[in-house]
Each structure stands twice: as C-alpha cells, then as structure tokens.
C-alpha cells in the first residue's frame, strides 16, 4: 500500500506516492535526487543523514517518508542559496573543517540549528552539540574551529 505525501523540501513543494517502509533518507536521496544527505549507518548513530525537520535536526534514516506529510524539510542543499555558501559553510572551508566531506552535510544541518539556538557557544558547547555526529577524518578540531569562526562572524554582523 502506498501513501501520498505532500511536503516542502528546501522551499520546493513535492507530492509523491511512497511505500510505507521507505526510509526518509532514501526518499530524499533517491526519489527526490537530493543526494547531499548522506547515509552512514541507518541506525541513528553516525549523524550523516541529519536533516532539519521543521527546523529541528533529526535523523532521516530513522523516519519513514510516509510520516512527513505536511512537513517542511531542509537538507544540506538548502543551506546555501544560488551557489553562495552560508557563513557556516564558508567557515568550514576557511578552517578546513572537512576532509572526505561525507559526514559534512549532517554536521552542517546540526550546527546550523545549534548556532541559531546558541549564538555564542563555548568550545565545550560545540563539542557537546557535535557529539552525535561521527567524523572519521578530521579529528573534529577543525570542525570545532569552523563552528567557532562561524559564530564569531555571524554575531559580528548585525
């Protein structure tokens, strides 16, 4: 049995028929072609698949597409507009906060929401907020520095 879902992703409205068991991560990646959302474990631990559901970071591998009727989703593709990097993305580039870049989309979505709630984070706050996203390449230090840099730049701007 399939289910009809209507939702907004990165500001664009979509309506699709989905099978009940289709994971939201697979729906975004393969039905909508938004492959920026990555999948690293499909059991909620790695955080690579984290998206913003009505602005709140959640694991897309732990939800079904059938559950998102009427919701609004932001994926990594929605963080920048017209190819212009967001301040957070820009800071990741400047501070070398990514290597293979596989964990990066989930970290960017998670940290975008975090900075909105915590504009002036301490290093400890950042590490705590990051602790649900696994990165195997960077050792986290440059990610932490990138988030700090973004916070500074964003609070410097009015």
């Amino acid at each position: 049995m399939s289910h009809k879902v209507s939702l907004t992703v990165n500001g664009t409205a979509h309506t699709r028929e989905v099978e009940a068991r289709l994971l939201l991560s697979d729906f975004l990646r393969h039905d909508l072609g938004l492959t920026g959302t990555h999948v690293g474990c499909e059991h909620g631990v790695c955080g690579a698949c984290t998206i913003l559901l009505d602005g709140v970071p959640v694991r897309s591998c732990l939800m079904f597409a059938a559950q998102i009727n009427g919701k609004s989703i932001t994926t990594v593709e929605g963080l920048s507009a017209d190819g212009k990097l967001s301040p957070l993305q820009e800071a990741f580039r400047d501070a070398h906060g990514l290597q293979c870049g596989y964990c990066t989309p989930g970290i960017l979505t998670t940290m975008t929401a975090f900075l909105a709630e915590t504009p002036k984070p301490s290093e400890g706050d950042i590490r705590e907020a990051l602790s649900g996203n696994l990165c195997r390449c960077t050792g986290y230090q440059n990610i932490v520095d990138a988030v700090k840099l973004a916070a500074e730049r964003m609070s410097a701007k009015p």
Partner: protein
Amino acid sequence: MSTRSFGQPIKRNEDARLLQGKALFVDDVELPRLLHAAFVRSPHAHARIRGIDTSAAKKRAGVVAVYTAADLGDYWKPGPLLLPPPPIEGVVFNERTQVPLVKDKVRHAGEPVVLVIAEDRYIAEDAAGDVVVDYEALPAVVDLEKARDAKTGFVHDDLKTNVAAHVRQTKGDYAKAVAGAACVIKRRFLYDRGTSLPIETRGVVAQWDGKADRLTVWDTTQAPVFIRNGLAAMLNLSERQVRVIAPFIGGGFGPKIMMFYPEEVLLPWAAMKLDRPIKWIEDRFEHFFATTHERGQLHDAEIALSKDGRIIGVKDVFLHDTGAYDPYGLTVPINSQCTLLGPYIVPNYDSTFTALFTNKPIVTPYRGAGRQHGVFVMERLLDIAARELKMDRAEIRRINFIPPDAFPYDNQIIYQDFAPLVYDSGNYQPILDKALKAIGYKQFLEEQPALRAAGKHQGIGLVCYVEGTGIGPYEGAKVQVQGSGKVSLATGIGTQGQGHYTSFAQIVADQVGVAVTDVDVVTGDTDQFYWGAGTFASRGAVVAGNAVNDAAKVVRQKILRTAAEHFECAEEDLALSNGAVSVVGVPGKTVKLGVLADEANPMRGAVKPGTEPGLEATSYFGPEMGATAAGIHAMIVEVDPETCTLEIKKYVVVHDCGTVINPLILAGQIHGGVAQGVGNAFYEQLVFDDRGQLLNASLADYLIPTALDVPRMTLDHTVTPSPLNPLGIKGAGEAGAIPVGPLFAQAIEDALGLPGQGVELNEIPLSPSRLWELAGALAKIDTSATRVR
C-alpha cells in the same frame, strides 16, 4: 611569477561542492533501469555448506536474479594475490585468497554465499531472507595461539596448518649480544582487532553499455587502475573497454583498496549478464564483516640494554592474525617488524613472525598498517627499561636516537616494498626538544607530586616513531593547458579526503603561473589517466605529487617555448603569472595561456617535426625506496582512579614529514590520524566470541571517538627534506595514528602510579573496564624474566 602557493595554507578547491551536497559519491549514481544487489552472508564463522535453496527468493516479485557460486561457472575464481611475499630468505607463505561466493566452506562470518538482484534494495533484502542455506557448523579457529597449535580444525583444510606465513629477519647477532647486556626485559604484548570504519561504507555500481561495448564501474576503491585492469582480464575485455571511476570517496584509510572484493568481481559480471546497471551499497552491518579489518597481534618481545641505557638488541617473536585469507601478502606484519626499530640504533635485531589464518574477516592494511604494533612493543619496552635503569623516559629515547649524520641509515632488513629498510634522512633530537617544551615535560614532572597529593591522578606520556612512507612502484600525472586558460591535471590515484584536488593544484599552479582555483584536478577516473597504483601507505603526495611536479615543469617549458615564438623573443625574457606570459619589462606584451594553448594546437599548419600539439605533458615518478617520516606525540592525561575514565588535558604532536605542500591539509591529516589512534587506544575493539561471532557489529557498540573524546591537539613541525624526490616531501597520512596506543599506556600508567604497584599496561585497546581489571590485578605481571645486573 605569481605568489608561491606551495607551502601555503591554501583553502581547498573541492570544498564548495562538498559543502553544498553537490559532490558525487558512489551511492549518488542514479541510472535508468538500475537494479540493486544484496547478499546472503554466512551467519557462521566456520561451516560447510550442504545445500542452498534459492527457489523462494527467485519467486518473489521484483527479484531479477539470484546467483550462487555454482552459477558463476568459470568466472568463479579465488581473487588475485596483490602482493607476493618479499624476497626474504626462508620465508614461508601459503597463498589463500578470497572467493566471490562461497562454494563449499565458509571461513568467516559474513562471507557472501548468495547474490540477490532485485528492482530495489528493499526487495533484494526481502529475497535474501527467503534463501535457505543448509550449514554444517564447524568449530571456529579464533584464538591465535590455538590457531598456531592446531592439529585439527584448519581454516584451509588442504594446508593441514593454520600458518599463512612465517618470516624471520635478523640484523647482527642478538643471541650473542644479549650475553653482554646489563639489563634484559621480556614481556608479552597484545594488540587486538579494530576496523577502519569510514563513514561512507563501500559500494559498487556497474553498467554495461552494449552499444558502446563498454563497461563502466563506479567503485569506492582507492586503486581504480588495478580494478580496471583486473576486471578487464576477468571479463575478457580489453582495458580500453573498462572504465573505473572512484568519484568522491567518504574516507578510505586502507581497506577500500583490498582489490578484489567479491562485490567488485560480481557486480560487473552480473550487469553484463543482465544487461542492466546494478548498484550495491554495503550497509553498516555488512561493513563489519565484508570490509577488511586490522590489528590482531601477540608479541613476545625482549630488549637488551647496557647499564647506561643504550639498546644492545631486540628480539621479538609474534603471531599475526591475517583472518580467513591473505590476499594482501605480508604487508601488515612486515610493517610491524620493520617499524619496531623506530628512530633508534638497534645493533642487533631478531624478529620472527607467524601469520595465522583464523575464522575472522580478512586483515589488510588500515592506517598505520601494522606500524603501530611495532611502535607499541618498542616504546613499551623502553618505558620498562627506563624504569628498571632508573632513567628518565625522554632521556633513554634521546640517547638511542640515530644521529643526524648517520643518514642514509641502513637497518639491514627488508621492508614491505621489497627494498632494504634504509631511512633516507632524519633529525630526531629537535623533534624531541620541541615536544618536551610544548608538553611542558619538566614542569609537569615537578608538579606531579603536588597534583597527586591533591588527589589529582595526572600522568604524562611521550612516544617516538618513524613511518616508512611514499613507497613505489610509481604514479603518473598529465597536465594540460586548455583553451579556456584553465589547467587540467589528471592522475591515476583515487582521493578519499586527503585534499589532492588542492595540494596537486598548488604544485601545478606554481609551475605554470595560474591560480590554484584554475587547476582542475581529476583523480580516480581510468578514462582520464591510464596508469597508476593507488592511494595507500602515505604515498599520494610523495609519489603522485612528484609526478605532477615533473609534468607541470615540462608544460612550463612548452608554454615558454610557445610564448617565445609568439613574441619572437628569447625564453629567458619571459615570465609566467596570473594565467599569462609576459615579456619582462615591456608593458602590454602579455599573452594569455589559453591563447598559447590554441596556438600550440593550430587548426591549420602542421605540427613541427619533433614537437607535439598542445601544452600538455605526462610524467611518471617512481621513488627508489620509501621516505621515512618521524615524529613524537606527548600527552598529559587525568584518570579517575575509581571509574578508570580519562580526561586528556594536553596533547602535542611534533612531526617531520619533510617539505610541506599545504600545512592546513597536513594538520588535518594529523588530527584525523590522532583521532583514529585515540579510538584504537581506548575505544575501538572488535570483540569475537569463541565461535568467531562478532559481538559488537554496530556503531552503537563499536565505539569510534566523538568530538568529546578527541582532545585539542597542538601541532608543531620540523623539516628534514627527503633526498629521494625533487620536492623533498615525505608522507604524513598515517603518522597521527601510529604512536597513540603506547602513549595512552604510558600516560595512564604514570597517572595511576601503576608501575609502583607492579602493574603494566601491555595491551591495546584499553577501556575503563579493562583498565580497572588490570589495575586491580596488582602484581600479576610476571617480572621474573627481568634481570638487572
């Protein structure tokens, strides 16, 4: 000339795409009529297959094909041996390589038995569940010593032994030398299994295009050229008919190179047979069995020293767990054997290892690739020796360093690249001085008693290592100036986050006078570059980097020659910068590279004899042997003696990897390596039960460090260029990961004052639980073999 970018912390070219979710990874490949594969994998570690019933799976709606080993016919073959054993006298090597699908006997849990192909992965998994395999479970070979001693119960029955290899290498005469030693220390060291765990699992997409008569394979491999060549041979195609693309790869760390994985062999075959593209993306559960592991070794080691702490010799006998097959030859245990010697003068060395087959997933190199085991043994022995001889831990290391004037330094044994283990260059004392200063060694030791009195259990550790990097055979690169004025660079290696799109671009940019962002780098596409070996052993920057440099130099010459004709002047009067060539001192006399590229490839008129069209060059570089990097890690740790949990207070890395191309990227490599080392030292362990079952095959239970577990690191460098390559670089990819185990052991021991209680930490990984057990097991360590005269 433009500002030199070589050596500068240039931001990465590839980041904009990665940051916006626009980079192509293997699972992002979507093709019309794409099918999906799933595998039936053995739940047993060791079992005979009595029968397979695939009828229900075949009947399921959406299932396209179900294959067992029997269906493969002649295509069923054990995989190739990637590296034969090095030419060491007396070496024993039993080659047994992995098979695409198990025919008769399963040799490790998770070994693939049946391939299911369906319209989507969900259905493929449903159908895999429909398959019934009749197994006769056999007792599993798990423990190393039992594997060695086995009279029955062989992983490979025909061998009548579980020995995969046996190698002895010696330098000097240890047996003789030990007689004159003032201090001999003998201990057993254990280093248990872990896995590389890239956040992207492996994956393969294979597409056969019958009209074009070509096979295209997207693969998360670190070595696309080898895969192309191998597939062509297996499938009876010409190499030109096969294109292997390693697009963006989500971390490799070694195991993504273990060519050929069964999935890499099977998907292209099935795609041709079914004439439809097929995708297989390893899921995280599969990853724990289907991707190779590393690190199980058991050492019985002995060090002999003079009264003043000079090393007289080391003897080591160790067992190495190679898992169910040994396609990667002896690389890992030989690395352990060679790297043990470290930055020290060891006049007499006697090292023997036995590699053993076990009913566990295959072992191949993972970042460090056995080097950490050697470092662990040597550094622990030195710690114990310092204690016995009442010497300072830093001092015993310092006095044993190979002096700077002794290079090239010949260790008189053979390395994994078949070349003699000769260190090209090095200067270790400045590394130590910097490390001691950065960690505040003296000051800490002075403060430690007061901290202890205040109930703070803090300890310090300091560990030295060398790393053989940048081994051959060779890599190549093609540099080409395009009509647009942009420069393209293609090389055969794959990239998994090491920043090659930038570091290689820097090399080219400097030679031809363009911005780094104007160099478009392609790696890992066999249609773009034909030849190459792959990304492993910290060799990308060294080997491919030098090929890139050479090709770029030739292109520079071609540019100058073309421009000299253009302006009718001498080449010496020309300067390259900002994507153009100008005549020095004559304002306005400037021509853009794009224009020159077109002039070098005219639509009319012939190319002059002896010249080639275009501003293009291809070069290859093959170092005669590896370049040896070195470094020291130091840390201060605080341990809660009741819970045995840790807090790392300070972490310092001082590293010498020769000339640095991009310090930003280098720092990132070291940070990442340390994080993996921290995982290896205190968090990550693959736990097998005595039936060979992996007990923690999930990310919830196989613990890779989070942002709260990896400390902030302070980095410093010294630079001793390698004489072996024009750029003077040495590899750095693995350095971060190598010394962390012994560092943890040493610092934790120190924090808890364990040696004073007769407790030593001679195993890795540790954990709070294990630490508590060891610390509680007071005076259980057998020190009887220690004698101090």
